[in-house]
């Protein structure tokens, strides 16, 4: 009997071509995601921080770029399906008369942001982490909203 073996390279779209297709697929996904939430996207304009929301097997993952903070300095609260993020970014340089500021682009100030999630969240299980200036909040859906798998047993 002939044996068929799959190797990584057997795929006609392996390597670069495949990556290009994968990139295209992701781009299209993102475009649709954006179009579907245009209302939210527009209302959020200018409000800090901009966020990205992903869906995974457990629920949602929210990310936001907040460089130069500590997790303790970011206040997070969940009420139903609403997540709020608050904090303040402070930057100061000593004003000793011998320091001159050539450029100041990094923004400072208070921020407050609320994000409406598409489904109810299990607030007990929300986990936040902060790494390399990116806030990452894992928001598992509440049990009632999670798809249940029903095992079908063979007789």
């Amino acid at each position, binding site marked *: 009997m002939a044996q068929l073996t799959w190797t990584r390279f057997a795929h006609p779209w392996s390597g670069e071509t495949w990556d290009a297709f994968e990139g295209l697929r992701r781009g299209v996904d993102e475009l649709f995601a954006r179009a579907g939430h245009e209302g939210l996207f527009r209302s959020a304009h*200018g409000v800090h921080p901009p966020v990205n929301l992903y*869906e995974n097997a457990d629920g949602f993952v929210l990310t936001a770029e907040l460089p130069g903070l500590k997790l303790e300095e970011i206040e997070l609260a969940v009420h139903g399906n609403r997540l709020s993020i608050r904090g303040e970014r402070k930057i100061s340089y000593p004003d000793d008369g011998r320091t001159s500021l050539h450029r100041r682009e990094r923004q400072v100030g208070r921020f407050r942001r609320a994000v409406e999630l598409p489904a109810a969240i299990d607030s007990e299980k929300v986990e936040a982490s902060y790494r390399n200036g*990116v806030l990452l909040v894992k928001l598992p859906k509440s049990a009632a909203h999670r798809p249940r798998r029903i095992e079908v047993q063979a007789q």
Partner: protein
Amino acid sequence: MTNQSTTTHEGSATPELRSREKQALERETTRGGPVFRADVDIVERADEYLVTADLPGVESNDVQVRLEGGVLSIETTRGFVPEPGWTPVYSEYVSGGFYREFRLSDQIDVGRISAKMHDGVLELHLPKAEQHRTRRIEVTS
């Protein structure tokens, strides 16, 4: 010990932070993907320049700082990458790499440049070469 005051951005009242659109740069990269202009602060002190750059999502290993012909460049090779099982629901910003370059007017003591990353912020100390330092001359009575 002298009493050191600090400057705040816009007077004493804390401003509301408004997000700005990240500025994408037209830059060819080997890895593809967008490259953004990093926001920086540049402070000059008597003996050094302090360059601080916001590079959210970047690991310290993925930052390249170069000083060539008086041009300082900051480049990241890899930024935040979402996990494979995450499907975007909506996105308000794009993750990517960062780039920035500056021409330095003073000579820098290249051997003593130091850089460190913390919480997505690069802090670069560029000591001025000895002959370019501001000297304080003590006036004695």
